[in-house]
């Protein structure tokens, strides 16, 4: 017997005991019809070859281990950033269970969202009744100030028209006529979660600015000196938005964070469940039309939102998840230019500290090769930072990256001597990445939790930066933007580099050298 009441063994130890190992070996030999182990080895080795890579890259229909999710996930993420707003996803109900689970597994926080629970009959007759009943139920039960509607692919395939449906629902008395129900069509078969973020944010702004779907006068812009800020779909939203607020306050800038979900994804455990917390007030969302400019931290999360805002006579500026010295410089100088506010000494000191840290440590990063995957803006930001550190972002892969993104990445590589041998891979997945890591190995891999399979297969150490991070806790509480956020990223990278040297030099009697106390 393996188990012991005094020292209870978890699954990680329990099944490695002899009795279980014997049991599993018998199961395999007798009942599983296993392949010849030599054949498994042969195929395993073949899967590491350039020949396999070529076939792998020739895939046209199959996607294996993509690094992207679908539109409504981004819709829910964006909608949760508004004051007392309940995301409502029109379509099949299982989708909503998935979005809630996915976000909760990353943030370790509740995710409130409802579905219109469409089934076969709605597939035939349309989902109007589901939407009408659903809005009435949500409104009565959860007392939201706003219900933001998005769609699943089911509702999109059958062609439900949200604008007309919401109008009819209101006429039927589901919610008051002047109640805010912004909407966005978010088909899962177009784009990815970042597209859903974009569509939803645009839908909400359009609702407030352009006359609430014909039920109110359009807002007349009266330009002021405020700045709107859009973070985009961001796994670090909690830490990042707080850091951005601190920067704005240091600079004395009047600002509105649009889709500010930094509080709802970080509520305290103090005896009270806050279904809603913080968020952009509806008033601020409306008044954002008057702002002097809007800044997007992630170009590819706001490809429709920014042109919409620009159409309302604001300056719009987008960044690509700025990380590191120059990208943060650029971000702050842009803020300064737009607002005519000087960059305060406090931020200049922070910049100096980041440069200091990079100077102290760059010897350990310089010349190292990295593979990066993730959302297109995050990839860009990370690659730019690595180039500043003298590292080489050799493979940069974004499943939801476009041709335009690829060109932008290649231009970044061309701008630095360290980018010489680097390449961007738009539309590829993590099985492609596996081939890249086997055929053109790198020193480190940067990506989300799913990168651990690549780490296991290829032995490339994984630095967890991205979304989702399910198997490590609380990273989302630390910013990765600004000089201080960049510092956090630098430390994460360095920790892995040093851990890796220790791991490789920890055999007593074999590698006693290099197992250094001071580095």
């Amino acid at each position: 017997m393996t188990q012991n009441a005094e020292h209870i063994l978890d699954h990680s130890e329990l099944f490695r005991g002899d009795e279980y190992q014997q049991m599993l070996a018998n199961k395999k030999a007798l009942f599983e019809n296993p392949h010849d182990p030599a054949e498994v080895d042969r195929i395993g080795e073949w899967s590491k070859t350039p020949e396999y890579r070529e076939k792998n890259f020739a895939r046209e229909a199959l996607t294996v281990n993509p690094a992207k999710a679908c539109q409504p996930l981004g819709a829910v993420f964006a909608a949760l950033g508004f004051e007392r707003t309940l995301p409502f996803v029109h379509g099949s109900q299982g989708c909503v269970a998935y979005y809630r689970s996915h976000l909760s597994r990353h943030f370790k926080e509740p995710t409130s969202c409802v579905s219109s629970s469409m089934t076969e009959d709605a597939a035939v007759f349309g989902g109007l009744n589901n939407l009408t009943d659903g809005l009435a139920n949500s409104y009565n039960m959860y007392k939201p100030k706003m219900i933001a509607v998005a769609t699943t692919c089911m509702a999109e395939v059958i062609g439900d028209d949200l604008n007309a449906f919401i109008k009819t629902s209101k006429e039927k008395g589901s919610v008051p006529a002047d109640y805010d129900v912004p909407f966005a069509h978010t088909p899962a078969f177009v784009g990815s979660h970042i597209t859903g973020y974009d569509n939803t944010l645009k839908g909400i702004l359009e609702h407030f600015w352009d006359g609430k779907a014909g039920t109110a006068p359009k807002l007349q812009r009266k330009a002021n000196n405020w700045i709107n800020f859009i973070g985009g779909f961001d796994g670090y939203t909690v830490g990042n938005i707080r850091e951005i607020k601190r920067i704005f306050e240091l600079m004395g800038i009047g600002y509105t964070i649009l889709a500010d979900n930094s509080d709802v994804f970080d509520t305290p455990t103090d005896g009270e469940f806050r279904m809603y917390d913080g968020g952009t007030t509806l008033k601020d969302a409306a008044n954002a039309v008057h702002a002097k400019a809007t800044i997007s931290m992630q170009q590819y999360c706001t490809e429709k939102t920014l042109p919409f805002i620009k159409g309302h006579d604001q300056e719009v500026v987008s960044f690509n998840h700025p990380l590191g010295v120059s990208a943060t410089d650029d971000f702050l100088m842009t803020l300064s230019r737009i607002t005519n506010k000087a960059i305060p000494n406090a931020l200049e000191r922070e910049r100096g500290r980041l440069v200091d840290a990079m100077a102290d440590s760059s010897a350990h990063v310089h010349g190292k090769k990295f593979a990066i995957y993730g959302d297109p803006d995050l990839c860009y930001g990370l690659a730019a930072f690595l180039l500043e550190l003298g590292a080489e972002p050799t493979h940069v892969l974004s499943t939801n990256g476009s041709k335009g993104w690829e060109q932008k990445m290649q231009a970044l590589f061309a701008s630095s001597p360290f980018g010489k041998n680097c390449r961007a891979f738009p539309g590829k997945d993590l099985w492609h990445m596996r081939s890249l890591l086997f055929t053109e190995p790198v020193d480190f891999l940067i990506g989300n939790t799913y990168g651990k399979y690549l780490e296991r297969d290829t032995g490339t150490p994984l630095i967890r930066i991205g979304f989702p991070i399910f198997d490590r806790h609380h990273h989302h509480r630390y910013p990765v933007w600004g000089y201080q956020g960049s510092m956090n990223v630098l430390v994460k990278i360095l920790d892995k580099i040093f851990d890796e040297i220790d791991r490789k030099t920890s055999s007593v009697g074999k590698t006693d050298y290099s197992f250094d106390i001071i580095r």
Partner: protein
Amino acid sequence: MSRATTESVAEIKARNKQLIDEVLKVYPEKTAKRRAKHLSVHEAGKSDCGVKSNIKSIPGVMTIRGCAYAGSKGVVWGPIKDMIHISHGPVGCGQYSWGSRRNYYVGTTGIDTFVTLQFTSDFQEKDIVFGGDKKVTKLIDELQELFPLNRGITIQSECPIGLIGDDIEAVSREKSKEYGGKTIVPVRCEGFRGVSQSLGHHIANDAIRDWIFDKSAPEASSKFQPTAYDVAIIGDYNIGGDAWSSRILLEEMGLRVIAQWSGDGSLAELEATPKAKLNILHCYRSMNYISRHMEEKFGIPWCEYNFFGPSKIAESLRKIASFFDDKIKEGAERVIAKYQPLVDAVTAKYRPRLDGKTVMLFVGGLRPRHVIGAYEDLGMDVVGTGYEFGHNDDYQRTAQHYVKDGTLIYDDVTGYEFERFVEKIRPDLVGSGIKEKYVFQKMGVPFRQMHSWDYSGPYHGYDGFAIFARDMDMAINSPIWGKTTAPWKDAPRPSLMAAE
């Protein structure tokens, strides 16, 4: 806390009825009428729990339920390790269900084993417009080229497939023929079908019947000689290793487990199952269909069992043994006796810390009833329970064998109802899923995920019971729950006199 233990049953019933009345007040009239049928207070002696079940969730109420795809790909098919399961349609469904159910297995992942890979046809707009059959046809060719050791393929339909009129059955037949009779299984588990995961289980069971049993002989891939003691574990998904800590007991009592459905399972095991002398069924909800089919078609009897907690484990071992000869019956007694010291030690350690604590559950297939015995073995009291996607036969089993008089019953509970119930009853522990976990922890109520075992487990079998007991103790008696209120909040206003 532990209020239930200090109240009479009559008081508890009155309170629970009042609670139900209170939550119903929030709903519009039509919804209140519908929800009222799903909420009840159990009356001892009744044949079921007095609730309606397995009917459509109401829009907008925040149901906890999932969909048919989740029931098929996520639950039944996903764990079959040597087959490739294609999430056919847009990218999301496969992405959100990727590796999240902790179906443990052993194999060379990506080469001969595929459980924790996400294969999808990643539908784009043109696939919706022109149909996806061509794409999945090509996709199968690419799978065959890049993953040549796969033993079979399933096509798990997402919502659009059924709406755009694709013929995945024709594709499956054609490709199967092309690849020499390869097992290729189309599964019509579009998420909009049915009212929950439950129909997905049924559809997945039927697909095994139609596309595996009807197309292969039991000898197809497993050449072992049958014995009189061959059984198959049905409805154990090996979450955190549950099926393994179950299998070991069955083998110790002298039985031979020839197949696991479906945790750590393989196509060969599915195909060989008709050789079993007895199918033992853990998750009745998700796999009763195939058990009944095998009984009708192959004459294999099946019996339900429960491997949560020593009382139910012993009862189940004896029940399973009753289908066999004295050798196995003696084997069951030997196993029970062997593990008794472990059970005694675990109970001695944890029961004093858990005795009298109350629990509210809301889970899926079998757990809203099956885990009650394990809690009772530790002196705990389940005061409320409900099924995400149960049917009336689940509630019958619950009423007849598990719950106490006065237990609050909530079927397909809404977020609002569950919060209010827990807020008022203040149990010592809530056991439910990831979507519920943080809601209750914020409220200061200890919580364990009872789908994923909160990343722990196994909970089945004697080895699992030790872990279960430790985990419940860890949740309830964590020092953190004493710190949810800031000390200055409740404290009397500090006097400034001394300082002045």
